[in-house]
């Protein structure tokens, strides 16, 4: 067995950290290690946390981690923040809210930037979760900002997904309508000590009424005040209940299968993109095809067919 993978499996934080970096950078060394690790992963329960900006997600994740530790669980946290589309850099500040977890050896926190589309964010997050899982963490929490498509993709990794909102943010309910309704297993209204809480909860409940049908688990709405550690115990109890529900209904295996399917697609997509856009033999060709498309000498469909034909040859 390779040394790095072995160290990851023994829980060595530096090895875990380095392997995640390989994955993020698309370093070929990473793939080899991931092959070794895969059979050992699959034991951790994965919680996805997403929601609007300023909802207090990091604080909530921090409190959940503390409660999980009290319950004797080890925890991995992957905090994803957007990469600047202009510079390709990122400011990752989620740890500010998690400082008190740093000295606990039972917790491992990793910040990730979404990087560029070609970087294959989702696959790096998949890997990070798998690495933390294989390293022996009982629970892995994935936190993402916002509710865009990229986040929805990432959240496919999770066994239980919670969508976090806050009272009074007028648009937040609107955001949900725009597509996140489907991915929520639990709604959390954080900052529940703020005015407007009743209204936000009522609006959510009536939204759930619309989509709720007979025989389906009704998505619960929980209230938390993470900064005062309120409602977190109940929230984790709800996660347990959801886990029992998906395990007994066969949905757990479906979800895991969907996760691996997504990962498989992601790896293939990433490899193909790398093959086409990063390899020198294609670079010049693509430039000239683009030129021709622009001059109306060719159409994008024919160009794509030409590239694929070349690739499959």
């Amino acid at each position, binding site marked *: 067995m390779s040394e790095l993978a072995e160290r990851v499996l023994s829980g060595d*934080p*530096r090895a*875990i*950290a*380095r392997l*995640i*970096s390989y994955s*993020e*950078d*698309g*370093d*070929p060394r990473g793939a080899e290690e991931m092959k070794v690790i895969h059979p050992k992963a699959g034991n951790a329960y994965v919680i996805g946390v997403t929601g609007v900006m300023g909802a207090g997600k990091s604080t909530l994740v921090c409190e959940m981690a503390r409660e999980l530790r009290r319950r004797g669980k080890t925890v991995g946290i992957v905090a994803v923040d957007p*990469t*600047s589309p*202009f*510079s*390709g*850099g*990122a*400011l*990752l*500040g989620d*740890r*500010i809210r998690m*400082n008190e977890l*740093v*000295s606990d050896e039972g917790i*491992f*926190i*990793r*910040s990730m*930037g979404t*990087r*560029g589309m070609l*970087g294959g964010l989702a696959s790096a997050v998949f890997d990070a979760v798998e690495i933390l899982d294989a390293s022996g963490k009982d629970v892995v929490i994935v936190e993402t900002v916002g509710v865009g498509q990229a986040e929805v993709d990432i959240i496919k990794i999770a066994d239980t997904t919670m969508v976090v909102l806050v009272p009074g943010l007028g648009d937040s309910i609107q955001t949900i309508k725009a597509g996140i309704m489907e991915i929520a297993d639990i709604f959390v209204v954080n900052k529940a000590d703020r005015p407007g809480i009743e209204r936000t909860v009522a609006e959510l409940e009536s939204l759930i009424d619309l989509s709720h049908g007979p025989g389906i688990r009704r998505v619960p709405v929980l209230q938390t005040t993470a900064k005062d550690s309120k409602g977190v115990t109940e929230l984790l109890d709800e996660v347990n209940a959801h886990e029992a529900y998906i395990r007994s209904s066969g949905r757990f295996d479906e979800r895991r299968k969907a996760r691996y399917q997504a990962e498989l697609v992601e790896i293939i997509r990433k490899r193909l993109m790398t093959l086409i856009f990063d390899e020198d033999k294609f670079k010049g060709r693509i430039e000239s095809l683009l030129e021709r498309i622009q001059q109306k000498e060719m159409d994008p469909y024919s160009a794509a067919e030409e590239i694929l034909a070349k690739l499959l040859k």
Partner: protein
Amino acid sequence: MVKKIRVLIAKPGLDGHDRGAKVVARALRDAGMEVIYTGLHQTADMVVQTAIQEDVDVVGLSLLSGAHMTLFIDVLELIKDRKMDDVLVIGGGIVPEGDVLKLKEAGMKGVFGPGTSIEEMVDFIKENVRK
């Protein structure tokens, strides 16, 4: 394969002057790096734990309280203990000349005082970071 430079910007000690740390964090982001900012009041142990988990290439410490000879040295020693010799450690703040020399002896590769241009800092990181 795209290797991005990952930088930890940390404020050890009790000093709350975070203007410089934040300006630098933003500037490094704008130079294409991934910057992890931990906020205020970090102990040496927290800085090093974070550096490990985040697998950073650079640790940037910012301190204006004058406690650098204790707090920077604490971090440098821990880093040495853990044999993280491929991590570039730099510092910023009001550091008198004599202390700069001592910090460099202790393993701090760059010490940046008031008036340092961001370009200078970015160049320094790009030149000295592990490749």
